[in-house]
């Protein structure tokens, strides 16, 4: 064990110093940053595309059918052209325009559904944990029952009964199936926090119930809420895409799921029109990896024991 007082830092030591800095500021988590970057990229495609690309190409028949992306040839021997850089679908719609409109739509459904679901979850979770008694029993039992019902089953019935739905309507329907796990999570946290010293201190200070719930407890739950939010965004998107691929989503608004539905319906797999179903699938993959990374990153932020120094 030699002393290293006056020696310049070696590379390993510099790396160690960088790790320690990262340990100090948990939000500089590489997973969190990469995940956020992936999601922001998808939103950026949506925003930039609206400014730079002609969105009228999204209508049926506005372009030649089944053109491949630039640099590829389709089965008819047509080469890709720069007017439709990532090809066109079987209905003569430009794939790039479809994605510029469709990708943010898919993300929007997920975010809105989970925002509504989380709000319900926070409200019910706090009520159950804090008030206890019969209210707790009712909320807990209904959340448990709802968890056992497969959401797709109910949603398929709903959607086919409603016919065409808007994106918002679909988000609200999905929200009805993502509030259970935040409710249970928050209830458990509130139950353990209710016994803590600072909540007793606040009671001694004559604090009202709403003050204790929202000013004393809620701030300490923020990391959990974030994590739970991201998880339910993932669930919501999976549910939404599932419905769309079954052809049950919005009929007139392009989404990634609907594009995949149409590709399958038109036999894109047999005709080797890989760009038609492949590009939306790839984007969905990127979206899920982004959400997963954010979730892992948030886990490390809220649970310091998962953070490693070495």
């Amino acid at each position, binding site marked *: 064990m030699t002393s290293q007082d006056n020696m310049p830092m070696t590379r390993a030591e510099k790396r160690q110093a960088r790790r320690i800095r990262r340990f100090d500021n948990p939000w500089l988590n590489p997973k969190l940053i990469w995940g956020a970057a992936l999601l922001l990229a998808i939103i950026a495609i949506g925003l930039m595309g609206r400014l730079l690309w002609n969105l009228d190409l999204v209508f049926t028949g506005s372009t030649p059918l089944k053109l491949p992306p630039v640099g590829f040839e389709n089965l008819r021997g047509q080469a890709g052209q720069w007017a439709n850089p990532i090809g066109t679908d079987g209905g003569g719609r430009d794939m790039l325009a479809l994605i510029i409109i469709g990708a943010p739509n898919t993300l929007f459904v997920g975010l809105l559904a989970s925002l509504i679901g989380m709000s319900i979850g926070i409200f019910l979770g706090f009520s159950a944990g804090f008030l206890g008694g019969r209210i707790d029993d009712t909320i807990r039992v209904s959340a448990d029952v709802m968890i056992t019902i497969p959401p797709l089953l109910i949603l398929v019935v709903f959607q086919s009964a409603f016919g065409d739905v808007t994106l918002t309507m679909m988000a609200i329907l999905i929200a009805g199936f993502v509030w259970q796990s935040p409710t249970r999570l928050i209830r458990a946290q509130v139950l353990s926090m209710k016994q803590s010293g600072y909540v007793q201190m*606040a009671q001694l200070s004559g604090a009202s119930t709403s003050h204790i719930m929202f000013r004393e407890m809620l701030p300490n739950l923020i990391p959990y809420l974030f994590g739970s939010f991201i998880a339910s965004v993932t669930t919501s998107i999976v549910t939404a895409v599932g419905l769309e691929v079954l052809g049950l989503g919005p009929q007139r608004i392009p989404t990634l799921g609907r594009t995949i539905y149409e590709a399958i319906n038109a036999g894109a797999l047999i005709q080797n029109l890989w760009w038609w179903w492949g590009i939306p699938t790839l984007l969905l993959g990127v979206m899920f990896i982004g959400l997963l990374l954010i979730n892992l990153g948030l886990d490390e932020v809220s649970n310091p024991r998962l953070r490693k120094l070495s």
Partner: protein
Amino acid sequence: MLDDVTPDKPVLTLRDVSIEFPTPKGIVQAVKNLSLDIHKGRRVGFIGESGSGKTTTALAVMQMLAEPGRVSGGTIDLGGTDILSLSEEAMRRTRLGRVAYIPQGAMNSLNPVMRVEPQMWDAIIAHEGAVGRDALKQRSDIALESVGLPQHTSQLYPHELSGGMKQRVCIAIGIILNPELIIADEPTSALDVVTQRQVIQTLKDIQTRIGSGLMMIGHDMGLMAQTVDELAVLKNGELVEHGTVQQILEAPKHPYTKDLISSVPLVGGDSFLNPERNADAPKRISSEPLLRFENVRKDYGAVAALQSLSFTLHGDTPQIISIVGQSGSGKSTMGSIMLGFNPPSKGRVLYEGQNIQTMNAAQSLEFRKNVQAVFQDPYACFNPFYRVDHALKFPFKQFGLAKSEAHSQQAMQEACVAVGLDPDLVLSRYPHQLSGGQRQRLIVARALMLSPKLLIADEPVSMVDASLRASILSNIYDLKDKHGISILYITHDLATAYHVSDFVMVLFKGNVVEAGPPKEVIGAPQHPYTRLLIDSIPWPDLKRSWGDGRADWDPAKQEVAALNAKTEYRGDVPGFDLSKA
């Protein structure tokens, strides 16, 4: 008599050991150049406040330092083996085989889903490979017997054992392979005094029998005096004094050691308080007594936590009423009933004539303003999300005491100064940046700011470092002395109750067994249970070996006697009436 033991080769030799923790704000030296020998059969105590490096040193001997800590210099030699050069596998064999570690919280150290017996077998199998079932059974039975546990314990799950029994199971696992060195890290800090005495005696017996060295970590000078042969005093990672217990107790050289010794309050010893004058109680409008218990009883299922109890606290002269007892005696239940957190099963609690369970919102706010509390755990009392001034400012505003922002700021600063804190240093910090002692003082400052009529202090110093206890207690005492606040002091520590209180109630299994002025009750106890408690106090005095030093000390017998004895009433104080059952 201990000095004439001719020491052979030491079991453990620490030479210039330094331990450091790299952190974002630079390297923290947890232990600096520590050198020490532990000889065969000797008991060495490591004493110091939290953060002084005593546990860190012990963990380094086990090679179990938490990341990113590392031994940065020096050597650790265990009976001829250089610990620091051992491979991970060799170290694994050394742990428990040659060094055993008895942890602080035995309740968390046993596997809750395994019976006691297989957990002991695991230890043997991990070191000796396959051993026959009969041999295993025989060895675990011997180990359990040697710590004084009945044989059927081996078939029980940890939750079926009491805290003291769990700690003994941990000791039994620790000695099952006859280690050369036993490290006991505050083995009794979670236990009450009676159990503490039993467990320490078990530990001493068994250590003498297998002849290993013992490294005992703690912060209680009294317990150390009763347990070890040699003492090492640590402060900020440095060994400031080392010698036999006798040398250190009789002629401490380092000022910190002197502080540690003098901070232990003694029954009958000099008071650490200076009662100059008695402030008058705050003027009360109501003619009703401040607090009245009417046949209050609390049951948890079939267990009676508190038997029917009636008393009246008039509150016209400020007083400190102490409630002492072991864990499970119902004293904390009584505190939470008084605060209205826990409704009584029978009877009523009246605050100025109002039942606290049926108050309306305005009355409830008035009650909260006038009945405040200091809790046991200063670490949990602050919301980690806010700066600490939130805990002081919020109630001040809530009770309508604040005239303006500047006024509440000024009140906070004055309260901080009154409890000996620098307001500029502490008020704008986050809770985790303050020590336990500072936090507990802030809670006392909070009580002072609100100037309630009654303060319920539930074990206010049991989680604070020993050297700070006396000063925090005198802060609390000042609340009565200078500010006229009546205090209910709930504690298991008879020595402090002796000094601070005007009236003492001893609680045993929910019953008051002895009550009266402290000089009578604690100074000359008459009830068997009170005597049991006082005998269990570890004195920082070698001549006074655990009470009066009777060898036939049998707590079980005394508890039986206590159950049959009737309550002793040792006198009254004006302003507090305990109804005699």
